[in-house]
């Protein structure tokens, strides 16, 4: 019987410092059999184990076609991620996964896609952008909208420049609090929505970030006649087991770890409109 609680050893093939407090670890299982059997979908996550410290849930940002490489972009926020900043190329960690249901990439083919993120470098949607970048002709117009509180929160600037070069792609950036030399918009992320180019009847809106921001985005998109079933949110809770047992991510009748983390808005709308769940 498979014990889903047990991690397996993985090696850090490469460690990339993306910005202050943000780094990417490129991982591979050391056991070739486990590595060969490993497959994932965009939006799924792994449990990463730092020796002697503990586990955390981190979404996978690399491309599922090449499951030989498993990339995780990690923001330093808590005990485990702080410890992980000290890891170097060649170091070992524990890895188990993948878990959860990811983004609706198949269902979104030939549709326009709007990706909305808020806060600091939101890794779950990066997998969406990367996925479309590799299959650009299979999707319609791509809109990438990122909102931050302060200009300094916009980490990973180079990526936005690269994405802006993609065909039929719009990148819109906004900050709540402006500053000299900030070349983009100052104001809430939703004030950019008039510039978006999409067909409300044929679009997938994929978002992640603070729940307050996602609430506002959902409300704006509904006003623009996008159906609730075409709004997709990547939810976060304190996932400890990742297999629907430990109860920390219980959300109404869902366990975010196994029923999510990506949900269409119509599935969670009622709870999502109430704070404190």
């Amino acid at each position, binding site marked *: *019987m498979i*014990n*889903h*609680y*047990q*991690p*397996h*050893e993985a090696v850090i093939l490469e460690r990339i410092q993306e910005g202050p407090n943000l780094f990417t670890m490129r991982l591979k299982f*050391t056991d070739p059999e486990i590595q060969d059997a490993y497959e994932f979908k965009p939006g799924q996550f792994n449990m990463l*184990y730092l*020796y*002697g*410290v*503990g*586990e955390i849930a981190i979404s996978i940002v690399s491309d599922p076609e090449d499951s030989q490489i498993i990339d995780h972009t990690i*923001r330093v*926020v*808590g005990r485990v991620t702080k410890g992980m900043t000290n890891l170097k190329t*060649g*170091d*070992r*960690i*524990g890895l188990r996964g993948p878990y959860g249901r990811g983004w609706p990439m198949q269902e979104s083919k030939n549709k326009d896609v709007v990706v909305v993120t808020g806060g600091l470098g939101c890794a779950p949607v990066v997998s969406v952008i990367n996925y479309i970048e590799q299959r650009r002709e299979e999707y319609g117009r791509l809109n990438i909208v990122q909102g931050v509180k302060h200009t300094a929160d916009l980490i990973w600037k180079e990526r936005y420049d690269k994405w802006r070069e993609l065909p039929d792609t719009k990148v819109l950036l906004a900050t709540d609090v402006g500053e000299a030399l900030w070349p983009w918009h100052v104001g809430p992320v939703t004030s950019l929505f008039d510039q978006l180019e999409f067909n409300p009847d044929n679009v997938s809106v994929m978002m992640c970030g603070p729940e307050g921001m996602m609430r506002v985005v959902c409300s704006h998109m509904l006003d623009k006649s996008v159906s609730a079933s075409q709004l997709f949110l990547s939810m*976060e*809770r*304190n996932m*400890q*087991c990742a*297999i*629907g*047992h*430990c*109860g*920390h991510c*219980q959300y*109404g*009748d869902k366990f975010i770890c*196994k029923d999510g983390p990506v949900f269409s808005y119509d599935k969670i709308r*009622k709870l999502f409109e*109430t*704070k*404190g*769940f």
Partner: protein
Amino acid sequence: MFFQANQLQQLLNTLLSKGYRCIGPQVRDGAIIYDSISSTEQLPRGINDEQKPGHYSLNNNTSSKYFDWANGPQAIKPLLFASRERLWESKQSDEGQISFELTEPETKPTVIIGARACDIAAMKIQDQHFLEQEFVDPYYKARRETLLTVAVNCSHPADTCFCHSTGDGPFVDDGADVVLTELDSGFLVDARTPQGKNLLEGLSLEDSTKEQLEESESIKANASKQKRQLPRFDIKSRLFNELNNDAWHEIATKCLSCGNCTSVCPTCFCHSENDVPELDGKSSAHYREWDSCFGQGHSYIHGITIRSETSQRYRQWLTHKFSSWHEQYGRSGCVGCGRCITWCPVGIDVTESLGHFEERRRD
């Protein structure tokens, strides 16, 4: 079938000789708890329990019965879902390689004697959660496969019991291997599974008489008259329409957020995982232990506590237990054992809490 009261020791002897660990009720530290037993002398004979909100005490009575009480703080749950256990251990070599070694749960064929209808109903719910979902829990499974249950129908529910209104008691429906009903002169016995039948080998069983069956019926009727019951409105649908009701705040002014209710609840399954490294740095043990949705850390994500208010935590618990549980497991998560009422240090009564959300009639 029926056996004389003095055959109970024979039952224990048989089980022990077959190599079973016998777990039964006994008095310890002023409460009825479940632990290893080998003699009927250890059972809480002539004892009854007084339970009310925030109160539990044991009294001697003149009865010669072994099971004239309702329940204690725990029964089956800790035997299957350990309060703390090691899941695996990691070792780091001098070269920095990490290896993982699973911890096999220690199991021994075990029979629990004296579990109640509420406990059996709760075990079935935990079976659903740990064994019948997308992922199977190997630790729970190993223990469950080696546990047999000899349940005893309830004759004296406590004031805090409301199993009759949840449909889980006072008599055992299904899920136990053997069900006993204690009469004045002995026990009615009903083997519900082939394994249960095996447990009774060697006992002198008699056919039950009409009078004995009538006595049992009268015990059931009496035990069904319970002081508390769930309010009679559609709780499942109602709670999620009352998320902003002031009652959550009213309850929270009393609630200490201590988590006692979740610890004694036989269906609560939340647990946390944590690592305990050895001082020499060469190995680290990964444990899980019971956790509570009333704790500060339960809803923590990267620097934010989603449920910082007690009212939000109580709402999380109650809406899950009585409403969303239905979607997840096809029934409510409450079996009416009343433990959360008894063991709440400030005596919050869940049946009363639910009553706050009954739609007021507008005249």
